[in-house]
């Protein structure tokens, strides 16, 4: 273990290397560029490869291509680039190719405010590409967690054959904190399930007990077809309903039946907390401070931090809603994840604390909401 002072963006890069990432393709954009810079320096040292592509569309395309070739792949971007990547997030979901996308959120819409923080891409990370598809989105609160969740992002991506989005914000990306980096060899790494059948029996999109079919890499003797069209179990285009329906059900089921594994939540609650703050990313830092101040004043308040924002932690928030009378959701947007909290909170009061001008939601704003009864 080594202790270092570093940015969230750097921690993401180290997490990727610890997870076994061997390919990065990206395009410079504030406030994510440090990830590309550090990986251009570090990847060749571990035999990995870095390429700066001509735009973000090409970046994610190259990542998917490299992943099909067997390399764990990463790209990193921010709002405008994330918008450009949406088509290929859908392509990765459709073709079930593992890939990790980092979006360090900045203030939008459009060019917005490149050096200001935001949590404005919460809904885009869920629904940005067209069509129904599952997605996993992770949100670190600290620099150390940026490392840990980068590793998790790769592991989920390989395990479930799905794109995974690591959603930072400018605060976490650029903030420096002390991080205890583990020995990389001790980090748990998940590899995609390889097939063990003879090539002529291989069905790239066939049924499997786990709902995640084994994935053969190109160039290893399993010649098959990959397409963004709806496809049958061999990967060939299909328009048959009896092939489309089971596919759509399976790709959702492979995530839904593993919510226990995927939904990462930190709870700091007691049964008597009538007010609970639900937060994620940089806003969770303000929220934790506000909760601490409130407790010093003997106000009973609980705190739930969502590290996985998609799929949404329905069970956990429903449980909170059974205990609490009021749920406070601070966000650096005009209320995006609050919509989900409201959806599962029933008749319990959901109080939004929002700021969408590039500044953080302050602990004071959240404290006022906690004490405003």
């Amino acid at each position: 273990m080594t202790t270092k002072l570093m940015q969230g963006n750097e921690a993401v890069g180290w997490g990727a290397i610890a997870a076994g990432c061997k390919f990065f393709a990206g395009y410079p954009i504030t406030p994510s560029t440090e990830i590309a810079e550090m990986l251009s320096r570090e990847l060749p040292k571990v035999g990995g490869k870095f390429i700066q592509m001509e735009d973000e569309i090409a970046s994610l395309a190259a990542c998917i291509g490299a992943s099909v070739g067997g390399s764990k792949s990463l790209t990193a971007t921010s709002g405008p680039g994330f918008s450009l990547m949406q088509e290929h997030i859908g392509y990765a979901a459709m073709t079930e190719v593992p890939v990790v996308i980092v979006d360090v959120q900045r203030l939008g819409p459009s060019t917005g405010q490149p050096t200001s923080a935001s949590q404005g891409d919460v809904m885009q990370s869920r629904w940005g590409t067209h069509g129904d598809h599952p997605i996993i989105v992770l949100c670190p609160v600290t620099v150390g967690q940026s490392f840990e969740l980068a590793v998790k992002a790769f592991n989920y991506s390989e395990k479930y054959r799905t794109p995974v989005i690591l959603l930072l914000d400018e605060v976490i990306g650029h903030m420096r904190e002390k991080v205890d980096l583990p020995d990389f060899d001790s980090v748990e790494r998940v590899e995609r399930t390889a097939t063990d059948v003879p090539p002529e029996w291989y069905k790239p999109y066939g049924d499997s007990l786990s709902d995640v079919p084994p994935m053969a890499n190109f160039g290893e003797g399993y010649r098959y077809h990959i397409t963004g069209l709806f496809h049958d179990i061999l990967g060939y285009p299909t328009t048959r309903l009896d092939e489309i329906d089971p596919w759509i059900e399976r790709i959702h089921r492979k995530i839904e039946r593993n919510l226990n594994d995927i939904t990462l939540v930190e709870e700091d609650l007691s049964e008597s907390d009538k007010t609970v703050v639900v937060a994620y990313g940089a806003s969770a830092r303000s929220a934790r401070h506000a909760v601490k101040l409130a407790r010093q004043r003997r106000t009973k308040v609980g705190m739930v931090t969502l590290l996985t924002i998609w799929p949404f932690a329905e069970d956990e928030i429903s449980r909170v809603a059974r205990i609490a009378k009021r749920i406070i959701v601070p966000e650096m947007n005009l209320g995006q994840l609050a919509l989900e909290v409201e959806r599962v909170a029933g008749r319990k009061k959901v109080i939004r604390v929002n700021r969408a001008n590039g500044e953080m939601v302050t602990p004071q704003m959240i404290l006022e909401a906690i004490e405003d009864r």
Partner: protein
Amino acid sequence: MPTQVEHTEYMYLRPTKKFPNVWCAGCGIGIVMGALIRAIDRIGLDKDEIALVSGIGCTGRMPVYMDFNTMHTTHGRALAFATGLKIARPNMKVITIMGDGDALAIGGNHFIHAARRNIGITAIVVNNAIYGMTGGQYSPTTPIGSKAATAPYGNIEPPMPICDVAKAAGATYVARSTVYHSVELDRFIEQAVRKNGFSLVEAVSYCPTTFGRMNKLGTTVDMMRLLKENSLSISAAEKLTPEEREEKIVRGVYYDVEKPEYTQLYEELIHNVQQAEAARLERA
């Protein structure tokens, strides 16, 4: 007793893929597919070594029929996907198959930059001067004056010279032929696939269903005859005036040079970085 006719092409078609294919009767794309298979067969490449990456459109449907590692990607982005795959698997022969709209309009930026990097990918552009699958809208290679579904009064945009763009951008092999000159096309594709660098073959084709119908060019046979009569070799074209040349399809190898290939340069970079790093750790 009927004699058994052996077609080389059949050995490279997928036994599990249902035919017929998606193309209209008389389409030229199948000829390019045959040319590609014959080129691969002549080089003697192993099927496992080959990856075909395509975009969207009529031409984008080509890889699915062939028994290689095949990837049908998004519109215009075949070269970007292929770039990642080639970097991850430098020993594979990565071949992209694109249409004119696919490669040069939506994918124009990737086309330029893949050529600029001189990455070892073969790009085959089937140029039928129209968006066929969506019903015949004008493309970046539609000739001036031609009619299209979105150019009902005739196209006023000048066509893009594919080979000139590839050469200027940095490709190391550039050739053009037509689907009528299939023996020549086989040879150019073979040379392109053998090339260690970014290689481009423009296969001039035609679309009888949309372009031919809207421009009253007759049957498939008439359009084939047009390719024959309206094209000539580079040496013959040199005798024409620039104005006369404009009207012709000039066939031949435009450019063939040797330059360092991208993935090899990167392997060298890794080797050098790792050696320097090992030396640094030894000193420390």
